[in-house]
């Protein structure tokens, strides 16, 4: 019997489909070939020195490769902290995802070493799969000097389901870093404390900036990401756009509706001053931004009214001795004139020491930057900035408000960060 062309085509198609379906279970069940040692080494190189976006993807492939990759990483991690650090943050973080006790021991060792440069990555590695036996370490990390480590410790608490630690977690609602506060608020809410959502709601009203950086806007986006997922699946469908300026009518209305929906009142619970969405008129002229992978982050601003402002968001105001601003601004002006067109010193790396300068009338701040990798670099800070750095530290009050963590022991902490970044200070 001769079938029409269309029928023959249909039969051929069905035959192909049958063959594919017959082979599918075998294909799915067949174990994939383990990657070769060359392939593992290639992924390690990608994870260590590839493009920033590639590094975590390559590390993930190593984790999927399992034992052979773990063995290779363990060999490369060597026996010293320096050898281990040379693997870079993405591989250090991946240690926590392997089922390998020796790699886990390396991860914990890195976390306990205050001089290890990739402790935030190690903390994220721990948070991926924390073990009950690591509970005490996780709780200790909630008090770590590095905000990124504290944030990861909150993620670890979530993974452990450590609801008994609710009180310790609640203390993080007064953390000096807003990203830590938001994580704490989100987790407390998930554990049943709805009032903590007030911290996220407050962030939706932020419009602060640090020189040209829209820090309030970034806070609004992150807070809304946390908040909207906690409203999904409920009847609280409220339109809010984080790009709306907080003073716009639609933004004000949306926040009011959110407060009503979350707290059954137009006013949300009281939150501490450092977490409030105030936008003081700082009129910053001179700034110092420090990002040390060992000593933490500091955001300091001076204006021409003998005031120092500490931190982001609702910054803490510290009055200075009369004449301090005039002296500092003159020193800054002289230092920056000496530097001329030069704007950075050192090499790209995780450690940054930025001097920001916006004299009256300047549309944008100028940024003079020192940067380096995890290793100390002698003489990194140019002579023109040495005297300025010394004067800035000298201007920091030694007695500060103990209720605001951003100002506690500020002079000592900033001095230590400066030394870790640009080297010893003059004088």
């Amino acid at each position, binding site marked *: 019997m001769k079938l029409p062309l269309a029928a023959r085509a249909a039969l051929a198609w069905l035959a192909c489909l049958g063959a594919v379906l017959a082979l599918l279970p075998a294909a799915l069940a067949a174990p994939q070939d383990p990657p070769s040692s060359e392939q593992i080494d290639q992924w390690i190189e990608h994870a260590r020195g590839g*493009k920033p976006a590639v590094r975590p*993807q390559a590390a993930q492939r190593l984790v999927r490769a399992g034992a052979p990759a773990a063995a290779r990483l363990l060999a490369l991690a060597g026996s010293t902290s320096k050898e281990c650090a040379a693997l870079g943050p993405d591989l250090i973080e991946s240690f926590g995802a392997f089922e390998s006790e020796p790699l886990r021991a390396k991860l914990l060792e890195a976390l306990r070493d205050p001089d290890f440069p990739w402790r935030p990555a190690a903390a994220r590695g721990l948070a991926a799969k924390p073990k009950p036996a690591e509970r005490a370490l996780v709780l200790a990390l909630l008090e770590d000097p590095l*905000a990124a480590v504290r944030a990861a410790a909150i993620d670890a608490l979530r993974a452990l389901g450590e609801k008994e630690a609710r009180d310790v977690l609640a203390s993080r609602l007064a953390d000096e870093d807003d*990203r830590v506060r938001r994580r704490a608020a989100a987790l407390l809410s998930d554990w049943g404390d709805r009032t903590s959502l007030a911290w996220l709601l407050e962030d939706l009203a932020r419009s602060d900036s640090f020189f040209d950086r829209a820090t309030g806007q970034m806070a609004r*986006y992150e807070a809304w990401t946390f908040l909207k997922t906690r409203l999904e699946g409920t009847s609280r469908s409220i339109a809010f756009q984080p790009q709306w300026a907080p003073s716009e009518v639609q933004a004000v209305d949306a926040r009011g509706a959110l407060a009503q929906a979350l707290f059954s009142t137009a006013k949300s619970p009281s939150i501490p001053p450092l977490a409030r969405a105030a936008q003081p008129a700082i009129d910053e002229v001179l700034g110092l*931004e420090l990002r040390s992978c060992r000593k933490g982050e500091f955001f300091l601003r001076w204006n021409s009214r003998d005031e120092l402002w500490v931190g982001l968001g609702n910054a803490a105001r510290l009055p200075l001795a009369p004449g301090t601003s005039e002296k500092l601004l003159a020193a800054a002006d002289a230092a920056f004139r000496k530097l001329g067109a030069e704007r*950075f010193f050192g090499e790209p790396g995780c450690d940054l020491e930025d001097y920001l300068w916006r004299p009256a009338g300047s549309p944008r701040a100028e940024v003079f930057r020192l940067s380096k990798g995890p290793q100390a670099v002698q003489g990194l800070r140019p002579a023109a900035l040495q005297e300025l750095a010394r004067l800035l530290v000298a201007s920091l009050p030694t007695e500060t408000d103990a209720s605001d963590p951003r100002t506690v022991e500020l002079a000592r902490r900033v001095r230590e960060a400066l030394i870790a970044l640009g080297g010893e200070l003059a004088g």
Partner: protein
Amino acid sequence: MRFSAANPALSALLVSAALVAAPRDEDPVEVDIAKLVAITYEQGKPLPKEIQELDGKKVVIRGFMDPAQQTPDRVSAFRLVTDSCGCIGKPQVNHYVEVTLSGIDSEFRTNMVELEGVLSVGEVEEDGFVTSIYRLEATAIR
């Protein structure tokens, strides 16, 4: 029919038609880098609709050159980021815009920059790794 510039009505009609037909110098859309960065990105999953709609658009965007690429040389390509440091978490592929300067170059800038150009949105892969989801061919840097 021969066109005569002496006929003002016909001239106006033809000029109007030419203006409609010719590609207009599109006004750039102001794009907030914080909005790009804030998406929840999962490899292989569709990007949010409002982000996809930016693909091919002429945009103005502000941000900072990634300090990890700091160099004393002039640059014709760099990553644009929101902040001087990704210090709180692991940098992800949605945390930057891969910028190529078209017909211009620049010194490496430590302060905020404003760029104008055409934005491309979507995953680009190299060796099986996603290397970018936002790319900007910038024709102006301020």
